[in-house]
């Protein structure tokens, strides 16, 4: 399994499955933070966009994802102030430039991105920027991998671990996979050659009957990770249960703002009513995210659900399995 959506994109974009021997089957995991954001959480963001004088600042990935009733792109067309940014630095600047408005940053992402949001909150505190808020929807990877492995639904012989999440958390958080489940792990980079190297290292471990965590992405990852980033995360956030689309609630797999920083929490600062949550009928994104089904197994894939008219987030997100499959041609055997 490759866990991370970025790896899924590389694999499909370069046709890696085609160059691998037929004995190796790659299955994609839930490492796409857009895909695993629950409708209920997205509905909160949409409700916030309706609050007067609120500017929603978001990474571009979230714009087209359909919530229960609408999407950020649609509410923007209806007049809400929704702006895409590349970085929280840009969101902070929007807050500084618009003192009479409130900027709410949608905090999605895994451990690669969470420290940048933590840093933005600390910067806002330092510069006394009082109109900057965050909707914390971050998720943590190791707990959800444990949940997937415990469910026993998918039998893995090897795991390609996310590269940049590991740049932050190091390689030790993956030790439990090799130790408790006997599955070899390799932390890989994102170039096509990195993935091939990773698969090669996994096969070598399997053939030698080993299971340990190796780092192939040595230029970017140290076993101990980035201590400063981890420190900032611990300072600003606390673990909490999180709802992963298709998987359900996983304990200690999300991040909420710690007590000292709760005044930055958009959900607490604004009185919002997101309304009832609806899931789209027929969409099997959940099964796809757990590696149990492939996009081709979904009754809506390619018919009711296409990149142009997406039903589920796996098709909207540029690193969702369905989107990768559709755009890069699963039909070519890749």
């Amino acid at each position, binding site marked *: 399994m490759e866990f991370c959506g970025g790896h899924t994109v590389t694999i499909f974009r370069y046709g890696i499955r085609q160059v691998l021997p037929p004995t190796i089957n790659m299955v994609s995991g839930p*490492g796409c933070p857009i895909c695993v954001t629950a409708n209920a959480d997205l509905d909160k963001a949409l409700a916030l966009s309706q609050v007067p004088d609120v500017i929603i600042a978001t990474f571009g990935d979230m714009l087209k994802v359909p919530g229960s009733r609408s999407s950020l792109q649609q509410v923007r067309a209806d007049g809400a102030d929704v702006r895409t940014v*590349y970085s929280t*630095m*840009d969101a902070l600047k929007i807050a500084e430039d618009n003192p009479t408005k409130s900027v709410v940053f949608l905090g999605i992402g895994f451990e*690669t991105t969470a*420290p940048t949001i933590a840093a933005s909150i600390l*910067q806002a505190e330092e510069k006394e920027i009082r109109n900057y808020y965050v909707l914390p929807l971050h998720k943590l990877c190791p707990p959800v991998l444990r949940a997937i492995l415990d469910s026993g639904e998918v039998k893995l012989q090897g795991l390609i671990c996310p590269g940049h999440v590991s*740049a*932050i958390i190091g390689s030790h958080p993956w030790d439990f996979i090799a130790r408790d489940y006997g599955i070899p792990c390799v932390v890989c980079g994102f170039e096509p050659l990195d993935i091939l190297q990773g698969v090669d290292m996994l096969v070598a471990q399997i053939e030698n009957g080993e299971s340990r965590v190796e780092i192939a992405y040595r230029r970017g990852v140290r076993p101990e990770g980035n201590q*400063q980033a981890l420190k900032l995360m611990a300072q600003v956030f606390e673990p909490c249960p999180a709802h992963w689309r298709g998987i359900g609630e996983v304990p200690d797999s999300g991040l909420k703002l710690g007590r000292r920083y709760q005044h930055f929490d958009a959900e607490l600062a604004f009185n919002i009513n997101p309304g009832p949550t609806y899931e789209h009928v027929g969409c099997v994104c959940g099964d796809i995210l757990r590696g149990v089904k492939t996009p081709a197994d979904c009754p809506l894939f390619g018919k009711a659900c296409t990149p142009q008219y997406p039903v589920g987030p796996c098709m909207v997100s540029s690193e969702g399995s369905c989107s990768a499959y559709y755009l890069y041609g699963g039909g070519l055997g890749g």
Partner: protein
Amino acid sequence: MCLAIPALIKSIEDKEAEAEMGGITRRISLWLTPEAKIGDYVLVHTGYAINILDQKEAEETLSLLEQIAGLAEEES
């Protein structure tokens, strides 16, 4: 999580730096890598340096990127 590319730090001011990646320059934050120095290569994700790279390893990545960029010649 995913998109991060190597960049070279050209100058530092307080906790921010000017970093160059493949010919484009962008202001980045060093809040997560306060020990970074001018001349270091860092991995940049959403405008923040998330790790300092080994120079040798970074050059390897850049040349992999250049391979993918097609023709090697570049007009100035």
